[in-house]
């Protein structure tokens, strides 16, 4: 029976619950912090001058930046995600609490005083109930924002519906993307409507439903983690006891997910190791920090990225022999990051120039240098990073002295389509993209060694918290195994044929004889 969801109902329910849990916990905690802050701002003009600008500034920090900011302090997972959400939820709650209290008719305060109520009694019995609609409007805004921002939590391994969105984007799989995006949107609309309905209630009616709402919210708050644990229970039996599992990380695109699956399945099947997949990190900084903190044990990276992003150094000249480059990189990693290179997988994912196979044959082009003559009649489609980077187009132009008829700036993902349909005649591509073979392109050889080395390596921590033997075994086993042609084919299977990374990885391991072939039932 084929479900209309591209994921199992079990996984869907789990991610949905995670999302609800993130949102509810965040808004609940933001209430505990924000309401007293709001009261303080209402009572003291000084507090208002300090707190309001502060919560306003926080609001302008982009979600991913805030997560990256919290990472060195809190690491990855639920804690930093919920912290980010709480910080974001503060503004509407603080602001609406203060505004709501300010809006209470002064007459009622005088009445309260005349009845002999103290300031605290007036706050609880008069001001809060009368400010309730405005305060609820603040909770409503905070909730809707949280549902939206919680989708970013997947970038730091906190799960939620963002996980599907993240994977959908990575795999260029719209069905998967929408499996995350639509329920998240519906959740936001649903909660917005529900809370909006409460906001619009007359005070007496609001007072009647209020206890029920609070009880429901508390039940949800307490029960979601329990349900989640119950659901996770049978999947990873005895997960919490015994030694820590091997945690494999990846960034968020197909190639990374495929390599992640290859390592994970190899560890599980060949070495019988329990594996936890922490796939889909949103940026190099995030995943490298997770590795430095031993929250993951290894992940696939590219040598050039380590030089430029992590070490913030210039890449060594492309003319330097590759083994020497990798050896130097390893030294730097050990010295400066406390990380080490476990394995070199055998392919490079670097910039390359691609042309259509037909043109290559007709004009006899095999190297970039061969563009010198024909280039004058060709239109180039480059992405903006390639045009701008020192080791991109400027370096190519200088080394090969090529002139094109025209250069069009295109998005990195659109150049393939543009080259295929003839809108451009030569394009800057990533050398392992599955579309190169699928669309019948030929890569021109960089014989003058202009493009820096972007060899795919496995990065690990120098002081691993799991068995170093297993990690080294895995690295040895995969050393040089994945050629450019193989990864291109696997990328094409995932990106174009829409197979799952797990399926493609399994097939690779079978073909390589690294795991026994599956017995297929007729």
């Amino acid at each position: 029976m084929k479900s209309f969801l591209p994921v199992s109902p079990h996984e869907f329910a789990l991610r949905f619950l995670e999302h609800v849990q993130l949102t509810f916990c965040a808004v609940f905690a933001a209430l505990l912090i924000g309401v007293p802050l709001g009261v303080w701002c209402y009572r003291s003009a000084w507090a208002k001058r300090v707190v309001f600008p502060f919560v306003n500034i926080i609001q302008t920090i982009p979600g991913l930046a805030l997560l990256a900011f919290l990472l060195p302090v809190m690491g990855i997972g639920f804690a930093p995600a919920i912290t980010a959400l709480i910080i974001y939820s503060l503004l509407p709650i603080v602001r609406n609490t203060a505004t709501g209290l300010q809006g209470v008719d002064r007459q009622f305060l005088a009445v309260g005083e005349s009845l002999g109520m103290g300031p605290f009694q007036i706050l609880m019995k008069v001001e809060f109930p009368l400010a309730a609609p405005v305060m609820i409007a603040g909770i409503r805004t905070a909730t809707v924002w949280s549902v939206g921002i919680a989708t970013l939590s997947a970038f730091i391994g906190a799960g939620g519906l963002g996980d599907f969105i993240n994977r959908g984007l990575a795999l260029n799989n719209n069905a998967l993307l929408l499996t995350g995006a639509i329920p998240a949107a519906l959740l936001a609309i649903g909660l917005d409507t529900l809370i909006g309905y409460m906001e619009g209630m007359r005070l007496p009616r609001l007072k009647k439903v209020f206890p029920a709402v609070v009880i429901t919210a508390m039940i949800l708050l307490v029960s979601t983690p329990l349900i989640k644990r119950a659901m996770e229970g049978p999947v990873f039996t005895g997960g919490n006891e015994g030694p820590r599992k091997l945690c494999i990380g990846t960034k968020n695109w197909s190639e990374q997910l495929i390599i992640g699956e290859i390592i994970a399945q190899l560890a599980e099947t060949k070495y019988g190791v329990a594996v936890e997949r922490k796939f889909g990190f949103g940026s190099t900084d995030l995943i490298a920090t997770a590795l430095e903190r031993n929250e993951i044990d290894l992940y696939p990276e590219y040598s050039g990225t380590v030089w430029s992003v992590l070490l913030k150094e210039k890449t060594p000249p492309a003319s330097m022999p590759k083994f020497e480059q990798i050896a130097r990189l390893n030294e730097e990693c050990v010295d400066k990051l406390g990380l080490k290179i476990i394995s070199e997988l055998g392919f490079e994912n670097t910039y390359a120039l691609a042309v259509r196979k037909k043109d290559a044959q007709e004009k006899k082009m095999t190297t970039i240098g061969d563009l010198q003559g024909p280039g004058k009649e060709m239109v180039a489609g480059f992405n903006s990073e390639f045009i701008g980077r020192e080791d991109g187009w400027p370096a190519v132009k200088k080394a090969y002295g090529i002139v094109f008829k025209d250069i069009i700036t295109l998005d990195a993902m659109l150049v393939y389509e543009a080259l295929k349909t003839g809108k451009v005649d030569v394009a800057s591509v990533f050398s392992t993209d599955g579309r190169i073979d699928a669309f019948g392109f030929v890569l021109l050889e960089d014989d003058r060694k202009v493009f820096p080395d972007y060899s795919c390596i496995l990065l690990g921590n120098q002081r691993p918290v799991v068995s170093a033997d297993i990690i080294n075994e895995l690295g040895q086993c995969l050393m040089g195994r994945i050629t450019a042609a193989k990864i291109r084919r696997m990328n094409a299977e995932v990106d174009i044929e829409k197979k799952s990374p797990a399926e493609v990885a399994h097939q690779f391991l079978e073909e390589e004889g690294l795991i026994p072939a599956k017995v297929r039932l007729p």
Partner: protein
Amino acid sequence: MGTLRRECGFVFQNHGLFPHLTVGENIALPMQIAGKSPEQIARQVDKLLVDVELPPQEYARRYPDQLSGGQAQRVGVARALANDPDILLMDEPFSALDGIVRSELQQFVRQLLKQGSKTIIFVTHDLMEALEIADQIAVLHEGRLEQIAPPTEMLGNPGTPFVESLFEKPRRLLRI
């Protein structure tokens, strides 16, 4: 100050009932603050509602926005009387009400006075209302006390030029 407030009942211009509490809860509030027992409070709420001619079974569970202006002000008076204060301070209590409702409530205040156990301080800008209700009238002008006197003296023997000019119109109306 708190004790003085509790010995003194307040009636406000726009009834000042809390919109999120029922009629019964509004009346009960000052008694709760004074720490009375729930049974005592329930009994007193019913009695007060009967006194202000709003049958408890019909009105106790209503919310202020379900009452007419006159009814709401009666509840306001009931709330002010809840702790049986010695002094009742009424700050222009009926100025927002129309004529008929107003004279009904004025009558109610007079009855209350006749019972003799309470001092009522009644602030008003309506001279006819003052003359009709009060035993003693105090005229305040620009923060100064002009005169304290019973209504007849106020009309017949004004103490200052201001009081004389103030009561000229009522005097004319009453003589006709």
